[in-house]
């Protein structure tokens, strides 16, 4: 499934890199600790988090993640949006909680890194 299709299904608000939504999503990962993400998330994954500071862009870019979903309507720092636009990392916003977002992703067939 492409990121674009995910945005449509989950009504995500696309804040940056709208031209990078054709990426095929390879799976999903959810955590708020950056080192956990560094350790586990795989290239092409969509990352679900509450964090909104600019370092999420560095992590997403280093791991070639498909995009970052920021939950509970958290407003990302302006610097985050600026960096994400510059590095072509889609930042997607939703008022839903992380739990709900992950549940919906799972129902759409997006698998976790520890699922076959």
């Amino acid at each position, binding site marked *: 499934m492409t990121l674009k299709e995910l945005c449509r299904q989950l009504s995500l608000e696309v804040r940056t890199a709208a*031209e990078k939504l054709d990426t095929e999503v390879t799976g999903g990962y959810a955590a*708020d*600790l*950056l*080192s*956990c993400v*560094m*350790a586990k998330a795989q*290239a092409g994954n969509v990352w679900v*988090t509450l*964090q909104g*500071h*600019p*370092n*999420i*862009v*560095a*992590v997403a*870019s*280093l*791991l070639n993640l498909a995009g970052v979903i920021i939950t509970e309507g958290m407003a990302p720092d302006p*610097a985050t949006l600026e960096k994400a636009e510059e590095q072509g990392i889609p930042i997607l916003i939703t008022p839903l909680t992380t739990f709900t977002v992950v549940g919906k992703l799972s129902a759409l067939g997006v698998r976790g890194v520890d699922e076959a």
Partner: protein
Amino acid sequence: MPEITRVQELVYELKIEEVMTRSVITVTPQTSMSKLREILQQYRISGTPVVENGELVGIISVEDLIKALAEGEMEAKVEERMTRHLVTLRADEPVVSAVEYFAEYEFGRFPVVDKDGKLVGILTRGDIIEGLLKKLEVEYHEEEIRRYRVSHIFEDIISDRTGIILRYDVMAHDFDHAGEASSKIKRALSRLGASPQIIRRTAIAAYEAEMNIILHTDEGGEIVAEIQPGQIIIRAVDTGPGIPDVEQAMQPGFSTAPEWIRELGFGAGMGLSNIQRCADEMHLESPLGKWTSLEVVIYLDRKDER
């Protein structure tokens, strides 16, 4: 949005004067049609502008010639058979306007004039295709040279130990630039053609080492990436305060980070264990109160890449 191809881009970039034929064969209004036939045959062209005293006055083509032949008018002058209704292109216009003209009019060629209306060239569809192909060939060739330089750097530069050294200063508590050194190392490796797995492992190790310097040091430090033919070495060196218990610090989840750092998503206590997971060799020295020196080695030629 459909992707714009390089050729589509090129028709906007290239100017008509870059693709047109400059040495234009011309005839005068007084040239006879039979003479025109000789000229077209001799130069293997299908039409020519008609010029009188340096002034462009018309255009005549092989179609006009065939008509004249069919009507037995071969001794007629060019001025009696030529097209006077002139559509010209400007030399400084982009090729895309020529493409539009060819689509709009049924002409096989357009005279090209400069800004004063003086004839400077002639343009056919063939000229456009040839011009685009030539430009693409030049770009392809440049790309080949670039690729060559990168992939053969270790073969061409001979020493007993060749390496590329990238140094990055990392400031303490500088969260605004966190991850920049590792991003740049990642970019350099992909430019050098490293495999995705190697890039990923190096990027993770470099990122964690960079974050450790930002989070835990008093005065920052330095990240050095040394790329050698068979391995990548990442060195992270700082001037203190050092790690009290290295063995404890290696345990996943052991963290000394204060609450405000954890709220930023850092301080998960996985930095060193993440680095170890990515490394083929890891050497850590950290005399307390003095400095920390971390060396990570990632082998490039392992078959069983993790």
